[in-house]
């Protein structure tokens, strides 16, 4: 009996060891693979207008898609061989897994650069965009700047940390619901005058459903910016692909390309991009390819 248990245990242990071998990261350089197949697989968004969306004829377009096209052109030039681009549509809940499983070589998919994510994927520095918290309000609401929300009903999402710091502390009466559909309904029904949320969620609403949101606009400056980063696998971070991507992003900041793209896609000007342009031109360390604590 004991013997057979030991046998089973040994088998289980061995299969785990084998599994470990299979999922162990391939040591070959990602860029070599890309050049060999003549193709790069990039994770993109299709559900986040205007950063990544589908146009009327179903093509994937958006600010991030323009960035990716530009990067692939640079890549082809760098390796001296035309590299084909294959886009794989990802969503927020699977983008990191796709990268870990090797389904994509990299992604630019509206991902904010957070400490817990940096442990899972390699977030390429510098960051390329930034979003923060703002209030989306009706034009007749009288909301204009953070101080103006005192005593007003402001909708929010239950459990969001900024409900206290930016809503309650500014004197607003927070009306918080479980999810965004309830908030939208309450806002349109006039149960609250504004919506405290991530500003990058308001812009797609204005772009996709202009009639519905015609009377609403972002009525406060954006605060508590969280930057967005492109990602490669953890092992690849610091490798050739990641270095090339860093160089491209630095160049986009310096040349003002990101600001141009922002304008092209109808995204309200982000102060962060303006600052980054100046800082990159001045050679600030924020604009290098390593992540420094507190950056």
């Amino acid at each position, binding site marked *: 009996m004991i013997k057979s248990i030991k046998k089973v245990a040994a088998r289980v242990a061995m299969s785990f060891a084998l599994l470990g071998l299979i999922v162990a990261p391939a040591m070959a350089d990602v860029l070599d693979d890309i050049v060999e197949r003549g193709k790069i697989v990039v994770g993109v968004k299709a559900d986040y207008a205007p950063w990544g969306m589908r146009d009327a004829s179903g093509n994937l377009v958006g600010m991030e898609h323009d960035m990716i096209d530009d990067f692939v052109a640079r890549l082809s030039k760098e390796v001296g061989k035309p590299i084909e681009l294959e886009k794989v549509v990802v969503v927020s809940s699977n983008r990191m897994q796709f990268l870990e499983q090797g389904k994509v070589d990299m992604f630019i998919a509206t991902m904010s650069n957070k400490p817990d994510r940096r442990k899972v994927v390699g977030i390429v520095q510098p960051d390329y965009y930034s979003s923060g918290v703002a209030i989306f309000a009706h034009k007749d609401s009288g909301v204009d700047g953070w101080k103006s929300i005192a005593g007003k009903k402001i909708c929010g999402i239950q459990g969001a940390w900024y409900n206290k710091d930016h809503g309650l502390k500014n004197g607003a009466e927070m*009306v918080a619901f479980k999810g965004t559909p309830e908030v939208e309904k309450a806002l349109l029904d*006039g149960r609250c005058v504004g919506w405290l949320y991530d500003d990058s969620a308001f812009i797609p609403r204005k772009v996709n459903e202009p009639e519905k949101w015609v009377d609403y606009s972002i009525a406060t400056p954006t605060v508590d910016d969280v930057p967005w980063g492109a990602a490669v696998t953890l092992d690849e971070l610091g490798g050739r692909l990641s270095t090339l991507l860093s160089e491209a992003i630095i160049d986009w900041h310096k040349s003002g390309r990101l600001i141009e793209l922002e304008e092209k896609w109808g995204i309200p000007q982000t102060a962060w991009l303006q600052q980054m342009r100046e800082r990159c031109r001045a050679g600030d360390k924020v604009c290098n390819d390593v992540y420094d604590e507190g950056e």
Partner: protein
Amino acid sequence: MDIVWDWFQWLYDEHGIKLTIFYDEWDRNRFFKGIWTTIHLSFVCIVLSIVIGICGTWLQMSPLVWVRRIIQAYIQFFRNTPPLIQLYFFYFAVDTSVSGLLGVHGGILDSYGWAVVSLSFFAGAFNVEIFRAGVEAVPQSTTEAATALGYTRRQVYQYITLPLAFRVCLPALNNNLINLLKTTTVAYAIAVPETLYISNQIWSDEYNVFEMMNVVWVIYLVLVGFLVWLMHNWEKSVKIPGYGK
């Protein structure tokens, strides 16, 4: 009072038990406001649901078939749907339609108002059935005797049936009212700032989920315990010696 708050501050500093609702004035104020909201929301709903129960039972015995049918429909509607869905339905569907009809912007009732309406009718539907059970338990010979003494139908109900029925159905009523108090927590779905809603905000802000879960648990234990104690005393005080034995 400061000494108590300081003790909780010490508890956090020394043992990492983060009860901001005691030492942080901001959290303390909103938390106690939340408990107060739970208490008066429960009180208003309990009173209204009992009124609805009494009226409903009275109407259920109406000689008019349509009145009986309407009451029956009301009971089925409220008893056979979950309270959370009723709350959403009232707040997001009924309110929108009615304010659309009336041309009102911003809703006809706020979230607290709709919580009162929906929870009172929800518990009221059960109360109707509870009271009916009590009424039916009153022996027919008793009501017949009252009629023979010249009582009208309303008088029989008011002076004979109801007082007796009330004693029969108190245990079942207690159950339902306790349930009602617990069901007020669903009002947090439509942003009524009651205990659970506020606690959820606090644990999201302070990352003290574990501590707040315990606090919420204790709060409801105390609130429900108090209601149970109150109802038991009431039950005892109205007991008729020998009746129901």
